[in-house]
């Protein structure tokens, strides 16, 4: 379908973009890679009065190792995150996840900033951000990941606030993301990620709740030396996944536990884990 008509603006800098957003008011939306927003507009589920296309804002496309941190520009594309040597070496959980977002064409266009700001419960980056204690940097403030994902498609961002970069602590090592798809969908039915870091175990879940989930109870159990299978059983505690035609809630909870056990085993290098 043809989207509802809108005004189009193409700033060349972050400053210009922020000014445009303030001026246009809350009927304007940011267009980054477009792979979250445009599908909604094509179905007329979204009809913003104006789009601010930040595709030319090249200052937002970068990957930098900065001491004990890795800074990722908001417009960095999924494919670049998957293949960038610095990411692979310094934040391998991010590259492992980015490599499984969508399909090749989507990875060539979609951006991490756009995905994060969209806050789809089935999106993967939110979980990675929580697991790694990332910071979301905007034109106004630095928001810890734990305070960013408020609900389904809900973040604390003001309408004229732009995500400019994400900051990840340097977290090398074996990192695994298992994305269980019924068919090679864009979205995970359930996803589980794990990494044993120098700050302790990090375990996260995708698409089991309205927001990304960091499986803190599992992490604690693992850090205390609980056997993997037992620790993994804690993964589904407190979760109330939405059933769909594809998966019952009961199954999603079960799958959560199974994938958590497997991802822990793989991250720990256990054969057949």
């Amino acid at each position: 379908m043809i989207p509802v008509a809108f005004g189009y603006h193409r700033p060349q800098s972050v400053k210009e973009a922020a000014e445009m957003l303030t001026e246009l008011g809350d009927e304007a939306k940011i267009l980054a890679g477009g792979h979250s927003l445009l599908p909604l507009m094509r179905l007329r589920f979204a009809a913003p009065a104006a789009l601010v296309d930040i595709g030319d804002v090249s200052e937002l496309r970068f990957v930098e190792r900065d001491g004990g941190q890795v800074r990722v520009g908001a417009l960095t594309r999924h494919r670049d995150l998957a293949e960038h040597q610095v990411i692979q070496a310094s934040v391998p959980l991010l590259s492992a996840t980015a490599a499984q977002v969508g399909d090749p064409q989507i990875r060539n266009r979609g951006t991490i900033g756009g995905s994060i700001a969209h806050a789809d419960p089935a999106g993967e980056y939110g979980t990675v951000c929580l697991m790694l204690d990332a910071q979301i940097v905007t034109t106004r403030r630095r928001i810890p990941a734990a305070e960013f994902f408020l609900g389904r498609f809900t973040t604390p961002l003001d309408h004229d606030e732009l995500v400019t970069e994400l900051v990840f602590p340097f977290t090398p090592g074996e990192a695994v993301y298992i994305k269980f798809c019924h068919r090679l969908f864009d979205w995970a039915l359930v996803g589980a990620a794990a990494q044993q870091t120098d700050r302790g175990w990090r375990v996260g879940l995708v698409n089991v709740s309205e927001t990304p989930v960091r499986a803190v109870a599992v992490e604690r159990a693992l850090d205390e030396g609980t056997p993997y299978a037992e620790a993994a059983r804690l993964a589904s505690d407190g979760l109330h996944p939405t059933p769909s035609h594809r998966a019952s809630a009961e199954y999603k909870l079960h799958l959560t536990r199974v994938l958590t056990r497997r991802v822990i085993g793989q991250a720990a290098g256990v054969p057949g884990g």
Partner: protein
Amino acid sequence: MKVTLTVNGTRHEGEAEPRDLLVHYLRGPLGLTGTHVGCDTSQCGACTVLLDGDAVKSCTMLAVQASGHEVLTVEGLGCGDDLDPVQQAFIAEHGLQCGYCTPGFVLAARHLLDRNPHPTEAEIRRGLEGNLCRCTGYVNIIRAVQAAASSGSTA
């Protein structure tokens, strides 16, 4: 709004509404109907073109977004007696039936081989995940990409 696109090596200046998708702009004002629309949720890949050398879904881009960039459509890949090895391989291996998904596949395959000239079968399957076909059952599409790879094709 003004749109400036280099398509298949030729620079075009035209007008588009902001809401005109790139695929519609290519098919309509530019008359390049080889790129097809097969779905409305960015799943099927029939609209795949190369934007600055990258395979992208032209249904999930605005024409105005693409302004200032280079686009390669299937029409620019090869024609007449001068077919790209991927195109030749699709013919030789019967990698198409109704032909509707074919332009998208040919460009996605071209992009895959440009970055990975000798893909394994698993890499071919991963690389073409973004394209749907309903006629062939994919078996011959895989064979076509393997044939194009082993013919030593580079564009």
